[in-house]
């Protein structure tokens, strides 16, 4: 009899887990709430650190999506239960599925910047998020953001919704730093007359080629870095923004007018991740991301036999890390299913 696995979430983690499980001879059901696969990957224009087109990664994942994978798009989970033999799922359209293993790959969503009211997102015209900027970049509409603007300056604000106890997110989202540097370069590259400033607390260039990007931003593109966390933003009559912070390296308060403010929004677990966790009784950490059975060794299994985690349900992660993690998850699922024979 064929062994089966249901993967919930058709983003990067879910797709790669499905591809690998299929290769290992397991029958796969992939459930995605949207009308197409790819998740957040569909929102990015170019990827750090080499700024390759995100579509190339989408195409790679899409190549692996063949008829062996039973795909359920626009699918929302109504109920989910475990009858000791199988995991059972009833979708909202009435479809029933069951499997021997379950992979949670429902990922994250970006922090709701409106919660940092003093930054003016959703209140002032020229405050956007890093995700929205990607949309302008992807549609080649960057110039539109500066039409009729009196200020040729952009402020990129790091750590929005991350490293912030006040919004309940103590953790570092770890990928916003490099995203900010990438976007700063992209703005300078496409519109050289725009001045770009990054406002940061620490620049966490932890991964391979990240520091090199930071170097390039300084040397080749003249991006300016000011160490200080944004205190507040206020809108001027001409809809430019007056921002205030401490320039901590001179020890002086600093004010500056910018035409556009870009907020580097961090990761929070998606509502679906949290809903499934509560349906299954999975453990959440203090950061509300899901906990694997062991942080170092059992990184993809959970305390519940047959339930596995893949990708950003466990915390902030980039595309490369997510793909690697999905492969590890697939191996763990396969090992579990083989041991049950």
């Amino acid at each position, binding site marked *: 009899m064929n062994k089966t696995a249901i993967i919930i979430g058709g983003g990067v983690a879910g797709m790669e887990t499905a591809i690998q499980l299929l290769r290992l001879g397991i029958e796969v059901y992939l459930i995605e709430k949207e009308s197409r696969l790819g998740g957040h990957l569909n929102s990015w224009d170019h990827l750090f650190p080499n700024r390759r087109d995100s579509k190339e990664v989408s195409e790679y994942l899409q190549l692996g999506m063949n008829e062996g994978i039973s795909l359920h798009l626009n699918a929302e989970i109504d109920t989910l239960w475990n009858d000791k033999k199988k995991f059972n799922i009833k979708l909202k359209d009435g479809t029933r599925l069951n499997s021997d293993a379950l992979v949670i790959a429902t990922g994250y969503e970006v922090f709701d910047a409106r919660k940092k009211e003093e930054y003016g997102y959703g209140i002032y015209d020229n405050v956007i998020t890093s995700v929205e900027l990607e949309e302008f970049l992807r549609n080649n509409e960057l110039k539109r953001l500066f039409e009729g603007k009196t200020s040729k300056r952009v402020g990129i604000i790091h750590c929005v919704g991350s490293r912030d106890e006040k919004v309940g997110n103590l953790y570092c989202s770890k990928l916003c730093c490099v995203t900010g540097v990438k976007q700063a370069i992209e703005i300078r590259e496409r519109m050289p007359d725009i001045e770009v400033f990054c406002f940061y607390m620490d620049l966490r260039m932890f991964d391979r080629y990240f520091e090199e990007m930071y170097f390039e931003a300084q040397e080749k593109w003249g991006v300016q870095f000011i160490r200080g966390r944004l205190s*507040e933003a206020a809108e001027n009559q001409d809809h430019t923004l007056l921002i*205030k*912070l*401490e320039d*901590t390296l001179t020890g002086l308060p600093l004010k500056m007018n910018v035409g556009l403010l870009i907020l580097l929004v961090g990761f929070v677990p998606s509502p679906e991740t949290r809903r499934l966790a509560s349906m299954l009784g999975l453990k959440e950490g203090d950061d509300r991301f899901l906990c694997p059975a062991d942080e170092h060794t059992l990184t993809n299994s959970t305390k519940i036999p047959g339930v596995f985690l893949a990708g950003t349900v466990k915390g902030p992660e980039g595309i490369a890390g997510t793909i690697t993690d999905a492969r590890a998850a697939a191996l763990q699922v396969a090992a579990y299913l083989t041991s049950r024979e």
Partner: protein
Amino acid sequence: MNFRVLGMKSFGYTITKDRQIDFDQNDRKVTGYINAIESSIRLCIGCGSCTGTCSAGHFTDFNIRRVITLVQRGETDQLKKEIRKCMLCGKCQLVCPRGVNLRNLILTIHNILETYGI
């Protein structure tokens, strides 16, 4: 030493006061007391959002982020001058991402320096 009396030429050199933080000599008892009473200051990550929004800091050289560091280093002489500039408006506390109780820090420093006659 009077160089003229000794018949020597004065080249105009003076001994300059050491401006290093002398970590071993500084009175860090005060640091301990303040940390014990307002322990949230240990959570400061030096981001400066407090100073960026500070009403007093816009017009004087008051820098509340620096006040925390002065406490931690035991720089009591500097502290005494600094804390008089705060107006206790509390804006710093509203923007602090780590929830440091900065108003109580100022009050605590006042009390400690007064209690120990510094």
